[in-house]
């Protein structure tokens, strides 16, 4: 069986190998450049004590390679469409399943060998691409501290392995159910994109209960490391969030998550402390201490940086479990179907 599979898929394997080699060459060359740029910038800013605003002034790598790295988001679904979907559907379409299913090898073994090797290949491809991207992004992650943010999280670590295995399993199952390649490709594309969007937009933030930190207005607060910030704002003495109008042309104070609180939203005594003219250092301090006396605090809701790998594990686990369920469905369908 393994030999048959190799014969059936050697062209695909050669093309995938060539594409991976090209990607690896590009990322290794530009990654080494970005790393040396990063190290020299670190040395320069340490000498002049300006490392604090490095993330605003330094740009690592090139836009084109950065865009290519973002495009690796599509690798799992392409694997599912081009390798997963035809795995069974093409056998049905070409009628070769009738031949394959009347040999001494049982259908179960036939399917186990085919699906097993393909899922392994998908996991390997997802893992190699993700490994390259993770290494390439190292200096940028250190600079921007955004590895946990949506979009970045999805192309690094072990999550892409889970996506690739799931996409391949979805393609195999779609082919087994629809028995035609093109509809199976369509279902793989739509199903994969829909599930990824749902998990990414709504579910991921709730994998673990987020942490909320409160801080006094007189000093700001930024979660340490590459934390994933979910919400930020201000609460009053009763612990209720203060609603902040979408925009304002008045003076603002504080800075939680980039948004200030308008002085017009403060209790009346603090508004009068601001006076009528433009804010000076003294009136600003008076407003801040007045607001603090009224129990107003800032808050940031976030997933701490230390949970990064737990989230990667949960995300990859969800997709691998879904893949296992799909493969179980495929086995049930294939073993019951008439040849």
């Amino acid at each position, binding site marked *: 069986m393994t030999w048959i599979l190799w014969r059936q898929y050697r062209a695909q394997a050669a093309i995938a190998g060539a594409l991976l080699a090209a990607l690896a060459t590009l990322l290794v060359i530009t990654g080494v450049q970005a790393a040396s740029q990063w190290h020299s910038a670190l040395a*320069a800013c340490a000498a*002049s004590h300006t490392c604090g605003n490095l993330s605003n002034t330094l740009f690592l790598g090139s836009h084109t390679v950065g865009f*290519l790295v973002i495009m690796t988001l599509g690798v799992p679904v392409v694997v599912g*469409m081009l390798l997963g979907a035809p795995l069974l559907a093409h056998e049905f379409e070409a009628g070769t399943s009738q031949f394959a299913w009347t040999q001494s090898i049982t259908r179960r073994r036939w399917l186990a060998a085919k699906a097993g090797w393909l899922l392994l290949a998908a996991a390997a491809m997802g893992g190699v691409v993700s490994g390259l991207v993770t290494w390439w992004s190292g200096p940028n992650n250190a600079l921007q501290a955004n590895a946990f943010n949506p979009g970045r999280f999805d192309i690094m670590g072990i999550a892409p392995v889970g996506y690739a295995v799931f996409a391949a399993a979805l393609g195999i199952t779609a082919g087994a159910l629809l028995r035609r390649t093109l509809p199976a490709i*369509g279902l793989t594309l739509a199903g994969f*994109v829909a599930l990824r969007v749902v998990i990414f937009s709504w579910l991921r933030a709730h994998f673990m209960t987020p942490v909320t930190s409160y801080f006094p207005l007189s000093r700001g607060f930024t979660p340490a490391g590459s934390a994933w910030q979910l919400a930020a704002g201000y609460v009053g003495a009763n612990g209720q969030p203060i609603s902040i109008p*979408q*925009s*304002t*042309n008045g003076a603002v104070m504080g800075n939680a998550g980039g948004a200030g609180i308008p002085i017009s939203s403060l209790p009346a005594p603090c508004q009068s402390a601001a006076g009528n003219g433009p804010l000076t250092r003294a009136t600003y301090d008076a407003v801040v201490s007045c607001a603090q006396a009224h129990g107003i605090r800032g808050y940031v809701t976030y997933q701490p940086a230390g949970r990064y790998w737990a989230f990667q594990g949960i995300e990859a686990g969800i997709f691998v479990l879904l893949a296992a369920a799909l493969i179980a469905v495929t086995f049930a369908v294939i073993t019951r179907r008439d040849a």
Partner: protein
Amino acid sequence: MTWLVWRQYRLQAAAAAVLLAGFAAVMVVSGLQMASQWHAMLGTCTTGGGHSSCEGAPLGSTIGHDFEVLSVMVPAVLGIFFGAPLVAHELESGTSQYAWTQTITRTRWLTVKAGWLLLAAAVWGGAVAALVTWWSGPRNALYGNQFQPNYFDVQGIVPVGYAVFATALGIAAGTLLRRTLPAIAVVIGVFIGVRLFISDVVRQHYIPAVTSHMSFLSTPGTLARSWDLASGITGPNGQPLPQSSSVNSFNGVPLASLPHACQVLIGQASRQAMVAGDRCLDAAGYRVYDVYQPANRYWAFQGIETGVFVALAAVLLAITYAVVRRRDA
């Protein structure tokens, strides 16, 4: 023939219509929300003069934004499902032998099939682009970024050109490779490659860019809605100074390449010293420059980009005709 094409593609047409309806529903709901948010904002922040006080305000919903980003791949999907199987599937399943031995000539067969499918792709691409363009209206008004790469690519008429090109690419790849699956792979690879090459390398040269030089002392003019390509400092001889992303830089130029007297002033934190630094650079003949494509070229660029992709599609179709007419049934 038209009836035959309809029978062959009615399932795809129905699936495409359902998906488009779903897309439209999400974009209309999210777009109306965003528009009312924008009107509420206009009431409060334009009074302060300009839109500047609204900048940075969040606008729109996550799901609308996700759909806007995903719409960039609609042309490739049309190429995969409408274009690639058009000839390849007939050759694979052997139905071309039947189709090509009827009274209808191969040229007419291909013209009707390809014609309807290209029209469908153009309509679909145009409908998605129209929804995204309307949805982006408030954001374009607030940030004026519709000329920037990525935003430019999903609005206006260019998505129609992309859709026609991707479909023609699928038809040509299927005709040359004679198998659907490799044709689909070629559509994905070539479409992304051509799009990236044109948007990253070619697009900025459609019309020579405008360079404006400004004194350090003048208040910076706004380049709203334009497409900024580069900016920096020119030296006393009028030549741009080499740039580097090192930490000790000023407007992208390393401090070391500026006159020493001015360096001392620029390096200081106080407002007065910075103004003095600007004066010092101005007196030494240094100027700020911006290279950009002005905002009023937006539709010219949309037209050129669409034209490029439609022309590429025409070339691919010419190849398809030549191959189909010469091939043995």
